[in-house]
Each structure stands twice: as structure tokens, then as C-alpha cells.
């Protein structure tokens, strides 16, 4: 079935991923670490992958006891989940907040309670609220996408560029769009049509159909999110349009397969790693067990890890397929 590959590939990926990062010693089981994990509702593939990768990583390590709280987009509920973790006196909390600012205070409480807090993806607005912060690079995503499109269209200043954003009210969407705009600005292009979907397939289809109806001629489209990308492609196919090329975002398996397919309009996608939370768990474990990232000379785990947002094209797609997520 469609989700089998994930089961097969991901563990492998994690293992050598873990190997490279942690070296032999760090894989030795240490004292058991109780880790509380809370993330937004897994209402699309990438978020689902985030949670599952975390779960898988925990399952592979006998010394991790992972407590997963109901995924929610209600900060009120997420706060009370963290409060519960504090009550239960877990060793570490890995937190992918629905809204970083809103969970800062409770994260601080956790830190004051002597719990190791690892902040993933959406940043708190107080550095002291987390021992380690693992960030994707949303602004960077936009920049990479923009730069790629510039390379392709740079020579033609009045090319039509369209953008299909994700949930518009999320700061991360704002960042992506900002980066995209700035990068395009570098080569004198701008966003001519912009629609926002909601990370869902149906949203992608609806938004894209409207977009295509509104813009009879397009040269390039950047779609923020490969989950909604499925819907975006469906809409494009329905409309029978192919005068443009499409750049994706996040890096799902089926997008990469599209990239491999020469006569698909999908030329590239910008990775937004779905392994962040798993990395967060890994780091939390190391911190609690007082270990270090053994490839680094530093004896402590660093406090900020920002993941890179590379562009995947037909040239390097094989390299990224293994760690891609099933949308």
C-alpha cells in the first residue's frame, strides 16, 4: 500500500542518520529517559510524518519512554498538555508548538522545573524557554525557491510568477512568502498571483483551480507544501495547463517521483525536513543522559540546530528520496 515504503525506508534512514550523527557510543542504551512530546494536529502528511518519525526513533531506542499527547491546534489545550508533562515530572519535553509565542511561558515553567525542553520548528520568543532549539528554515525555503525560479526565468523580467501558499495565518507561511519575495526581487521578478490553500489536498485543488482561472498565462509556480501539492497537480491536470513549471515545498515522496518523471511540470522541490522532531527526541535523550554529539568537539549539545533547506532537482533527487515523507 501507499504507506509501506515509509515503514521500510525510514528506519534505515534513521539508523545510518543516527550513526553518522551520534557515532557508535551514543547508540548504547543509557538510563531510561521519559520524554513528553506534543505537536499540532497531524492534519497533513508532513505533520503526520513528524510525529511518526519521532515515534519510530523512540521505538528503536530501548532507553526512551515517549509520551505522545493528542495533536492539537488549540494552544490552550497544548499548554495544558505541557502542564501535565510537568506534573508527571518527565525528564524532557519535545515541543512543536502550534504557535511558538503562545507556549513560551509554559515552556519556561518546564525549564524552571528542571525539565529539558527541546523546541522544534516553530520558535519560542524567549531563548531561555528551551535548552535546544531545532529549526527548519522557512525564510530559507522561500529564498531557495525564489532563487531556483530566478535561475530559470532570470532573463525574462516580465515573466508571470504565481505562489500557492499554505495556511496564510501561520507565521511560517509569512516567512516563506517573505523569503520568496525577497529572492525574486534579486532578479527583478515579483509574485503576480498569490492564492493561499490550507495544507490540505482539497484546499490545494480549489485554490489552484481559482488561480488558473484567474491567470491565463503563467511561467512558474511555487507551491509551499507538497501535501496540498497533490491537489495542485490534480487541478493543473484537470485544466490541462502545462506552459509553466512548478516548484514544490517540504519534499514528499510523490513530488520527488514527479521530479524524476521528465514530462511532469514539477521541476524541483525545496526540502523542509520531516525529521526535525525525531532529531529533537535524539538531542533530548543525549542532553538528559549527559552525552554530547560525539562528532563535535564540544562536550555539550548545542542550543540551536537549524536544518538546511536544499533544492531537490532531477540531478540530486535519488539522494533525498530515502528520507522523503509520504504525503
Amino acid at each position, binding site marked *: *500500500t*501507499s*504507506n509501506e515504503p*515509509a515503514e521500510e525506508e525510514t528506519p534505515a534512514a534513521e539508523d545510518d542518520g543516527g550513526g553518522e550523527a551520534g557515532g557508535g557510543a551514543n547508540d548504547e542504551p543509557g538510563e531510561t529517559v521519559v520524554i513528553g512530546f506534543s505537536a499540532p494536529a*497531524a*492534519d*497533513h*502528511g508532513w505533520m*503526520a510524518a513528524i510525529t*511518526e518519525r519521532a515515534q519510530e526513533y523512540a521505538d528503536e531506542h530501548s532507553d526512551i519512554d515517549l509520551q505522545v499527547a493528542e495533536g492539537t491546534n488549540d494552544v490552550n489545550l497544548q499548554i495544558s498538555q505541557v502542564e501535565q508533562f510537568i506534573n508527571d515530572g518527565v525528564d524532557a519535553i519535545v515541543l512543536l508548538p502550534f504557535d511558538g509565542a503562545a507556549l513560551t511561558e509554559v515552556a519556561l515553567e518546564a525549564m524552571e522545573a528542571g525539565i529539558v525542553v527541546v523546541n522544534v520548528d516553530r520558535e519560542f520568543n524567549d531563548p531561555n524557554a528551551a535548552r535546544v532549539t531545532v529549526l527548519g528554515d522557512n525564510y530559507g525555503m522561500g529564498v531557495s525557491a525564489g532563487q531556483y525560479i530566478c535561475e530559470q526565468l532570470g532573463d525574462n523580467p516580465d515573466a508571470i510568477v504565481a505562489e500557492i501558499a499554505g495556511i*496564510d*495565518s501561520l507565521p511560517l507561511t509569512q516567512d516563506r512568502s517573505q523569503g520568496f519575495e525577497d529572492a525574486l526581487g534579486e532578479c527583478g521578478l515579483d509574485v503576480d*498571483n*498569490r*492564492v*493561499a490553500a490550507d495544507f*490540505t*489536498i*482539497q484546499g*490545494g*485543488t*480549489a*485554490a489552484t*483551480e*481559482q*488561480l*488558473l*482561472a*484567474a491567470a*491565463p498565462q503563467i511561467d512558474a509556480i511555487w507551491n509551499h507544501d507538497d*501535501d496540498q501539492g*497533490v*491537489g495542485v*497537480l*490534480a487541478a493543473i*491536470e*484537470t485544466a490541462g495547463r502545462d506552459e509553466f513549471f512548478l516548484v514544490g515545498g517540504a519534499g514528499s515522496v*510523490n513530488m520527488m517521483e514527479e521530479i524524476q518523471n521528465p514530462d511532469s511540470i514539477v521541476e524541483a522541490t525545496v526540502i523542509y525536513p520531516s525529521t526535525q522532531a525525531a532529531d529533537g527526541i535524539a538531542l533530548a535523550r543525549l542532553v538528559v543522559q549527559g552525552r554530547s554529539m560525539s562528532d563535535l568537539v564540544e562536550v555539550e549539545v548545542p542550543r540551536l540546530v537549524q536544518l538546511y533547506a536544499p533544492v531537490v532537482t532531477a540531478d540530486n533527487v535519488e539522494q533525498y528520496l530515502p528520507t522523503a515523507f*509520504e*504525503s
Partner: protein
Amino acid sequence: MSGTPSATPPPVESARVEEAALETGGRFASSGLWRNLGLVIALVLLCVVGIITSGPDFVGGNNIVTILRYAAIIGVLSIGMTFVITAGGIDLSVGSVLGLASVWATTLATQTIAANTHWIVMVTTAVLVGAACGLVNGVLIAYGKVVAFIATLAMLVAARGLAEIISGKRNQNLENNGFEAFWRDDFLGMQTIVWVFAVVAVLGWVLLNRTTFGRRTIAVGGNAEAARLAGIKVRAHTTWLYVLCGALAGLAGVMMIARTTTGSSTHGTLYELDVIAAVVVGGTLLIGGRGTIVGTVLGVLIFATLSNVFTQNNLSISVQSVAKGAIIVLAVLLQQQLAARSRKT
């Protein structure tokens, strides 16, 4: 049943007369015309705005088709909802039942065994899954006496969860060429799903206005106790209504697959609100007893055109929301003005 007087009198006699007037205006035919006239005017106004802001192409074939495609799925759901609301109920679960059906059908389709089965099997599965959910709703409401709002709210939550379990939160990509060939194909310039909507709407109209089933539905919504004492099997009928609504949600699930080439547990999220809004703006009474398929279809088209106009003008989502809120209210107010006028005549 000496207990009934306590429950039956409608919240507001006068308001209800008022409302009824909206619908009947003393005499039938006339007001029906007026009410729909109000909606038609609203729709025309929207198109005018569209043409002014984004040129005559707005009413060009392409854009019309785009609007219809967008409307089709909500439309099919709204037809089912019209029946449920006419009978005085409500179904909050249509959206997630749609999602569940889409996932179920596609997992079936993506299973090797089913790869070469005919797509009819898939469609049937989806419709049956939907009908089953509707049956649960109906039984809980009609026999378990659970308030419709709560029973279907529970189904909303549960169906979504089940869909996630089945799909493992993965999109089930469609691997059935027969299906694609039929469902994603165009026929007289319209994609199949648009035709499906058209057919469902027509059948729905006939069912509600020309059959005993429709008449019973109106009776149950208008005064369930009277219907019961006149020998109508109110509970059984109510159950069937929710089954119908569920089955249509299942069909909508198939249409969603056709549209997106995938089944996903996120399909149909929050559709319930759009659907109910379309039905009520169309002129069906939430207190039951009066329903109009034509109005519902117009309501659906108005909302579809609305968001189309918005995108055409590249409005920010936020501005769209504010405008949308205002327009909903204006549409309803306009509608009432005309209905009131019709009562005077």
C-alpha cells in the same frame, strides 16, 4: 401525549409566521418565485461584480466550469443536508464522512486485489460507507433519542479519527485507470462530477417535491407528532433521511477522489459549515417543515461564485473573510425584503 404541548409550540409564534411567510407568503407559487428571485438577483450581482473587476472572461466558459467544478461537491452534500434540515434535523458529520468514504474507497482501490476490479466497486464502497455512517446517526437520533446536533457532532469526530486510522494519515493515491477515465473525463465540456451534481440536484428536487417520501419529510419537520398520529413511521423515516444524507456524503467522497486523484482523511474538513450555510441561505428553514432544492442549488452557486470573484481579484484571505461575512448577511436580508414584498401582493 399530554407531554407534547410542552415541546411543540415553535419558539416564536409570530417569528415563525414571519419565517413561514418568507416561505409561503400566504400563497405558495408566488413566494417561491420571489424567494428564488432574491437569490438569482444576488447571483447576478456577483457576476456583474466579477465582470467589472476581471473582464467578460468571468462569464466565459472556462471560469463558469471552474465555478461549477468547485460547487459540485459542496452541492451534492447540500442536497442531502436539505432533506435532513427540512425534517428539522441537522448533520454536522457530512464533511468527515466524506473524508472517511474517500479513504475507504481508495485503500480498497490501492490494494492489489482491487487494482483490477471495476471502479464501480470503489464507488459502491464509498456510498455504502457513507450510508452506514448515516444509519448510525439516524438510529442514534430516531431511536436513541440523542439530539441530532450531538449525535452527528460525535460522528464528525469519530469518522475523522477512523479515516486517519485506516489511511495512516497518508493520502491514498488513486490507481484505477477505469475510474480516472470515467470520472475525470469531460462530457460536453463539463467534468463528470458536474454532471453528477446536476443529476443529484434534479433527483433531489423530484424526491422532495413530487414523492411521498418528500411529503413525509416535510410533515416530520413541520409537526412530527401530527405526522406520527397520521400514521407516518416518523422514526423509520428519520433514519432513512440520515442514511440518504450519509450516502450522498459517500458519493461526494468519490467526487472528491475524482477531483484530487487521492483519498485523504483531511478531505471535507469544515465542509459542514459551508453546506449548512448554503442550505439556509437557500431558504430552507432550520426549524424544519420547509425545504427548497432550487434555493439550495442557488445558495451553493452563490458561495462558489463568491470565492471565485475573490480570487479573481487577488484579495487577501482576510479581506475575503470580512467581505464574505457581510455578503452572507446582505443576501439573507435582500431575500427577506423580497419575501416580505411578496406577502403584500
